[in-house]
């Protein structure tokens, strides 16, 4: 029953992920945190792992969550869940729709959807920032403003913002570099 429930959760995520790339992240984040399957930190780590390993990010995260909750069987169920809506919808479209892109309604949907997905992903980044760049939980306990800021992390943040503005390597290189710096700094 719990497996079936997890299948349904990932099916929903697959069904409402539109626009590709990181669009699955806000949906996955809300579901996975609400269900208590991963912590914010674990979720952020999985984004890094998914960006550095082969395969689509959404599939990678689903596989990991499924495995962490129910072992190998769970990982298969979660992966099938996130993939199933794609397979059904694409088969229907490939079969019935001749010229999908020309449909005006699709263009209309995307004028609203694109900015919304941009905002959603920014929101997901903000949630991760609360643990990556700030010590929000410590601040709640001590109420000292200085405790709110994770100074070394903020310095790293600015450094990497500048670095990624002027260099265009694959994300994996920045992730490895940040990991090495992290070992020495934290």
């Amino acid at each position: 029953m719990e497996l079936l429930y997890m299948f349904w959760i990932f099916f929903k995520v697959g069904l409402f992920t539109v626009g590709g790339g990181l669009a699955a992240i806000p949906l996955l984040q809300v579901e996975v945190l609400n269900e208590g399957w991963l912590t914010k930190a674990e979720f952020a780590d999985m984004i890094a792992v998914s960006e550095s390993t082969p395969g689509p990010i959404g599939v990678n995260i689903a596989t990991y969550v499924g495995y962490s909750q129910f072992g190998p069987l769970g990982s298969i169920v979660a992966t099938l869940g996130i993939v199933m809506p794609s397979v059904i919808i694409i088969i229907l479209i490939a079969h019935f729709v001749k010229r999908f892109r020309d449909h005006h309604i699709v263009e209309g949907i995307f004028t609203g959807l694109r900015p919304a997905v941009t905002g959603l992903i920014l929101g997901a980044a903000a949630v991760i920032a609360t643990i990556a760049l700030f010590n929000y939980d410590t601040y709640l306990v001590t109420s000292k403003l200085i405790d709110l800021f994770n100074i070394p992390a903020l310095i790293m943040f600015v450094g990497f913002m500048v670095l990624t503005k002027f260099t265009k390597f694959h994300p994996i290189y920045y992730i490895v570099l940040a990991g090495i710096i992290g070992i020495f700094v934290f």
Partner: protein
Amino acid sequence: MAKIKGSILLKLYVVFFRVGFFTIGGGYAMLPMLRKEVVEKYGWATDEEMMDYFAIGQSTPGIIAINTSTFIGYKKAGIIGAIFSTLGMVTPSWIIIISIAMFFEQFADNAIVQSAFMGIRVVVVVLILNAVIKMGKKSIKNWVSLFVAIAAFLFIILTSLSPIYVVVGSAIIGIILYTTKREVA
């Protein structure tokens, strides 16, 4: 006949396994590899068809890489072809992530691994922000789209409700805006 069908299914599985295996980061990163296999090596589609498949993959629900592989599989060998290409695409992810998950179980409490990930989390924020800036430049063009983006952002940070509401709501706003604009024009 059955033999030919079996060999095309195996080919679909192997090709998409390869694409899945060599695409790090998903989405757009897989396009060059996919083109090489599907257009150049096997001639399953022309460049134009390939771009159409990718465009459809982008504008339908689901993960782009999966959508595109499903589409090509269906065009080549029907529903069973779609299933084989999709399974090919997800198998490398599955094997690699399971191995990593096992590693995590062993080393998650290791102090060095924990420090490394504290650094990595910072760069995760940077990478997502960069993606958002890129998307924003293309998607936020007027006051309405800016308002939609800000509303979606606030929805995520202030509530723990599902973003599905935002996805559906913004799609409806988009349809209304688009149809009213067309009627005026």
